[in-house]
């Protein structure tokens, strides 16, 4: 028994636990301030001021919103499936948080005589894992809509599920082209390959565009927020939800947004690579910890830019009609992604053949 306990690498477990709690805390904090940023961006785009009463510049607004949601009455409809009704928001939140496990948040730091990698798990099938978890996200939506026992919710859930499934195809295909170039599914390796400052977006602009559009659809963000279309389906799949269960659904959307921004920044924009700086040389000259700090900062700046793009698009582009959505997904994005894949494969083969046919 003692030998078993001793054989466990306790410092590793502790360091991972600390890392996990930090990342989950940061994700939640960022999701909180995304709600604030969303309202501010919306306001500024619409020539308004946005929340500015709670604290200086309204920065306490998310706390007030959270407090409001917590203090609301928790209603479980009589005709709902109670177990699934409660499971739904939890599942949505869980899947939203799980994706962060494989994203490399920085290089590695050196404290207490240990080299600590700033990635929770360097899974060698990282991208596959992300896809698996993201497709599980549809369960939260589907279960929520189904358990509410409400026609609008059910319709919204079905819409959302079919939308997410349709766009996952194009998303996967757009990434296959990229994976043919990287030759690896590990996000850490993909970032390492981009450390020279040449990001994959320069090789795969079309793939990035398709991925971006699909990410909007996956996160149920405008212009693809068909599953919570207020004008048609009241409030969509979370119509019957109240209090913090509703809060979880809304929050999961923002966490999703954060994570998909992180994935986009990692896969296409060099992840934690500091732009215009030779990271390895900088690490040798100024120490690993400072480098890791700068890397985390640069990743978060990239993520923040993507989050801004998410919001910017939301307040610019009106919602697609359902047939337009399906047409765009199946008839435009998937053929484009296939084309992108074929061209990439062709160029890779040509390169292997030293540019001779």
């Amino acid at each position, binding site marked *: 028994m003692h030998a078993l306990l001793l054989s466990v690498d306790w410092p590793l477990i502790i360091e991972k636990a600390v890392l996990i709690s930090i990342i989950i805390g940061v994700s939640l904090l960022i999701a909180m301030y995304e709600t604030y940023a969303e309202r501010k*961006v919306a306001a*500024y*785009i*619409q*020539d*308004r*001021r946005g929340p*500015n009463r709670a604290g200086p510049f309204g920065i306490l607004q998310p706390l007030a919103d959270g407090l409001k949601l917590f203090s609301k009455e928790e209603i479980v409809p009589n005709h709902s499936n109670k177990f699934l009704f409660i499971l739904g928001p939890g599942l949505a939140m869980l899947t939203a948080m799980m994706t962060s496990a494989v994203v490399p948040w920085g290089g590695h730091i050196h404290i207490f005589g240990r080299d600590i990698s700033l990635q929770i798990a360097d899974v060698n099938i990282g991208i596959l894992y992300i896809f698996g978890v993201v497709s599980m996200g549809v369960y939260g939506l589907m279960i929520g809509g189904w358990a509410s026992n409400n026609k609008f919710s059910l319709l919204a859930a079905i819409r959302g599920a079919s939308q997410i499934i349709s766009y996952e195809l194009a998303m996967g295909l757009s990434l296959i082209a990229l994976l043919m170039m990287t030759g690896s599914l590990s996000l850490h390796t993909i970032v390492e390959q981009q450390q020279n400052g040449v990001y994959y977006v320069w090789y795969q602009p079309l793939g990035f*565009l398709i991925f971006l559009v699909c990410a909007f659809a996956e996160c149920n963000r405008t212009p693809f927020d068909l599953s919570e279309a207020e004008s048609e389906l009241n409030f969509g799949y979370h119509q019957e939800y109240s209090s913090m269960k509703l809060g979880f659904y809304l929050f999961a959307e923002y966490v999703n947004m954060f994570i998909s921004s992180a994935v986009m920044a990692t896969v296409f924009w060099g992840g934690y690579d500091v732009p215009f700086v030779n990271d390895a040389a900088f690490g040798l000259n100024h120490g690993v910890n400072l480098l890791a700090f700068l890397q985390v900062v640069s990743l978060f700046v990239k993520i923040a830019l993507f989050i801004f793009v998410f919001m*910017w*698009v939301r*307040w*610019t*582009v009106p919602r697609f009609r359902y047939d337009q959505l399906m047409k*765009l997904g199946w008839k*435009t994005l998937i053929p484009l992604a296939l084309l992108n894949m074929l061209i990439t494969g062709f160029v890779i083969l040509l390169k292997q053949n030293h540019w001779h046919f």
Partner: protein
Amino acid sequence: MQALTTKAKTVGRKPMTFWEKLYIPVIARGMAITFGHIFKKKVTISYPEQTRPFSPVFRGVQVLNRDEQGRERCTACGLCAVACPAEAITMEAAERLPGEEDLYKEEKYAARYEINMLRCIFCGLCEEACPKDAVYLSETLVPANFNRQSFVYGKEEMLIPHPKKDPEGFAKARGEKRS
């Protein structure tokens, strides 16, 4: 059918060209527009700190006026109550006693003067009817309240501050358009 206006636009139902079907250029243009709006001047007025000026013909809560020496001008003649189309004004007259000359301008004064702000339509006919320039409509709004009785304004609410004892309050109550 005859067109009702010259402003009607006929909507083209042409199928979208390839360029339009791409969506991206059009969306990029739209996003440029919304991005430009971020830097535009905001039209918002942060209300409690900033207020918009009232129009010069604005009619708000009635004020019972005093003369330059701070004496109430109202003689309780009742012309305002007669003129009032909403029948919002009630008053009770009293005789000025010796020694009260610095309180009331005339020999008769209003011991009780009430306007029901829920009835008042702020037409300003009381102001027009008053022969003594004793009542006028100010630039103040009637604040919200919880019970009906508090909307019956008496002399405490409407009487203008004393011009000698509280010149600032007097000037404020007079408002900009009258000074």
